[in-house]
């Protein structure tokens, strides 16, 4: 068994033109490529072969990239259990990877591999052909050792799609290179994002942002008192959406049908209980609980989400960018419970709740900290990537 790839593209011919020419990109099996097995890491989709081509895949190919295969993923990309995200880059089998980001997976996977991980603004990249789980939170993230690769990929895939009406009618950012002047740029630090970090991590984060200070940026302490609610809101709203969205996995046309059913209700119950793994099943149960038993709590979570969005907009209007830790806050080992999974992404989920872009930057070689995340307001994607490129340049002695 291929330990990294779920499917390798047998087609090795590479496109002859386009600005991504020569770039090898790995995707995940929740992104449709016509004719490829597309199981989204779940038994619920076993034997499902995509009929259509996801818009992002079509655009990558049009821009000259070769899509080399899909890597093993967690069930529906929820968490990083059994995920091989980033491994194809580490083993030089790909120059970049597309990794679904539901609550920070692309950024956390990047931090494991010490590469850059980027989650674009919600609504900037078409979701047509994406086998999703949490439609209002998820977004296709990009991993690469090079921020120029990420910027070039965004240039190819971002923008309106006539197959995805949910993309708002907005101006697509210009991903051409742009200059950042540190003295005119304020970067905010949100105090409450640091308060729940494991022991010693806050000090390490403070040390890591020294790099920003040394580069000449103005740092500013800020406050978002309800920061801890991002995770909670994500957990409630996300589980409800997941429960509703996963309703279609009924084992009828694809997926594994459990034997022994007496009627169709039985068939649904038996097949669905056999199809989903324990972590996801718990998540779907939780969502169903909020849907059927505590709808009021779900509505509260939606209202709080709207308030958090306003709070975040206030911060991004007072600073150009924000810097956040990128710490795995789970107790230890591979998290198997929902609580542990959410703890893992406690410093990442905010960007999925608000839909703002977030960039994970790995530490400079030899640095003792785990790197950090930079975030900006929605649609600040091009400037955010430019900021990342500026910092990486500085590390290499540039100005």
């Amino acid at each position: 068994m291929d330990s990294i790839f779920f499917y390798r593209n047998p087609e090795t011919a590479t496109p002859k033109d386009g600005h991504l020419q020569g770039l090898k990109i790995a995707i995940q099996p929740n992104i449709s490529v016509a004719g490829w097995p597309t199981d989204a890491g779940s038994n619920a989709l076993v034997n499902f072969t995509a009929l259509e081509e996801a818009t992002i895949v079509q655009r990558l190919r049009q821009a000259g990239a070769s899509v080399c295969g899909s890597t093993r993923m967690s069930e529906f990309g929820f968490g990083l259990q059994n995920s091989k995200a980033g491994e194809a880059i580490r083993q030089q089998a790909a120059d970049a990877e597309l990794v679904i980001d539901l609550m920070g997976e692309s950024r956390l996977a990047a931090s494991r591999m010490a590469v850059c991980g980027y989650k674009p603004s919600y609504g900037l990249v078409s979701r047509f052909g994406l086998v999703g789980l949490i439609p209002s939170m998820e977004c296709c993230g990009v991993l690469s050792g090079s921020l120029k690769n990420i910027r070039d990929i965004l240039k190819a895939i971002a923008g309106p799609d006539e197959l995805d009406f949910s993309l708002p009618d907005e101006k697509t950012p210009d991903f051409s290179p742009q200059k950042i002047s540190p003295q005119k740029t304020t970067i905010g630090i949100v105090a409450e994002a640091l308060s729940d970090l494991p022991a010693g991590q806050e000090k390490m984060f403070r040390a890591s942002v020294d790099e920003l200070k040394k580069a000449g940026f103005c740092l500013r302490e800020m406050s978002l008192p309800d920061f801890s609610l991002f995770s909670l809101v994500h957990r409630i709203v996300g589980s409800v959406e997941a429960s509703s969205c996963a309703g279609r996995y009924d084992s009828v046309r694809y997926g594994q049908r459990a034997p022994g059913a007496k009627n169709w209700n039985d068939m649904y119950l038996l097949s669905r209980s056999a199809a989903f793994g324990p972590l996801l099943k718990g998540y779907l149960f939780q969502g169903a609980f909020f849907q059927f038993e505590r709808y009021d709590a779900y509505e509260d979570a939606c209202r709080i989400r709207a308030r958090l969005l306003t709070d975040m907009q206030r911060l991004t209007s007072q600073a150009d960018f924000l810097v956040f830790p990128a710490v795995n806050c789970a107790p230890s080992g591979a998290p198997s419970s929902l609580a542990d999974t959410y703890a893992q992404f406690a410093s990442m989920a905010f960007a999925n709740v608000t839909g703002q872009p977030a960039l994970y930057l790995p530490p400079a070689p030899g640095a003792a900290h785990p790197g950090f995340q930079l975030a900006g307001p929605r649609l600040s994607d091009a400037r955010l990537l430019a900021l990342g490129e500026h910092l990486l340049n500085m590390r290499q002695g540039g100005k």
Partner: protein
Amino acid sequence: MEFEAVIGLEIHAELNCATKMFCDCPNRPGDEPNVNTCPTCLWFPGAIPRFSQDALEKASLLCLGLGAELQPRSAFDQKVYYYPDLPKGFQLSQARLPLSRGGGIDITDENGKPKRMRIHHIHMEEDVAKLVHEMEGRLPISLVDFNRAGSPLVEIVTEPDFRAPHEAMEFLKALRTQVRSVGSSECSMENGTMRVDANISVRPRGTSQMNTKVEVKNMNSIRHVGDAIVYEISRQSAAVQAGEAVILHTRLWDPEKKVTLPMRAKFEGPCVPDPAVPVIELSSDWIEKMRSRLPEMPAVKAERFVAQHGLTGEEAMFLSSDPEVAGYFEALIGQGIAPRTAMHWLTTQLIPAVKDRRQELSSSPVTPARFAVLLKMLSQNEINANAAREVLLHLFDSDEAPEAIVSARGFRQVSDPTTLDSLIDKVLGAEPAAVADVRSGQGKAMGFLIGQVMQASGGKANPKIIRELLAKKLGAIS
């Protein structure tokens, strides 16, 4: 104790759009099973719904036609339930933010008094697949036809304003007329393009409480809706009088046995906003543009027919209730036909003839232009009424001009006094008794003589001139 019923209706109307609501598949549920499908309406992984502009326009026109207020902001939710007719586990429906609120229809109640039936709201939703239950040998099997999955629907939810089956039936008839005239739906209960659920409860007459209701489905004609409500009111009244509690549930109307039978507990699934379907925001400009596309509604049209063409209220209502008939009538007026002649010939001759042939007025070979030529020949005494009826029948079978049919088949009316004179003399010679009767003042005998002359002319004589000539010859007062 005397009971009164409290009834609210939920009406699903299928919009007559060319495509389904969220994909480009043809909206033709009646085709061979499962030919009109795609990854989107089969809800395959990765598919994204793409909301149809046509569905929005047709639904909006329907709302405006029913006097409803289009909402500046409406949205689709995922309405969760598990059933094989809905393979994605939820139906896209505007559960929280409907397309329109308010509106209503004026009907006449059982006592002949006008009564306004209010509409609570109208929302859009997608239809689900159709289940067909069959036997394969001894094995019962269920087949799923996805042609209907994703067909565009609106659901019209009324206030519980109805107190009697008559009111529900009048409302549905008027609703059908109005929706047909805006052109958004065929609204045929027989063909399933209009489906009605009735929510019925009873309470002691004179009280105002709202008791537990029962939902009744599966009526496939307006008459069945009336019958089902009658049955349900008596069933519930008897139950309450016997001290039994009414439980919230759904019942099916059995048209053979004429009873309602319990089906299941009423189920209301939870709703989750669907971020894949954009929120619908209607600007006031857009709403005005829709309003300007709204045809004249039947009630307004009827008033105009009375004022402009001197029809009676009843005649005007009849003509305006069907947009095709109203259009035909106005086309005849446009060709210079007198309104009363047009009304009379349209309703007593042409419409029954079209119905006999199972044709539609709009596609009938008797176009307004051809029919108008015929009616003009009638009013100018070139043919008589009998001949006009004959020529009309020929118009269905031949594409010849009415004048040509009249000439070729000798339908032209004989008004020449010399020709008629000799016919009259012949009849007078043969009917001395009738002649005597006329001379003694018996008017009936005059009619008999006119008929005889008519017969002798082969039906072509001008009856007015016969009467004049006869009167002159017999010295009678005509």
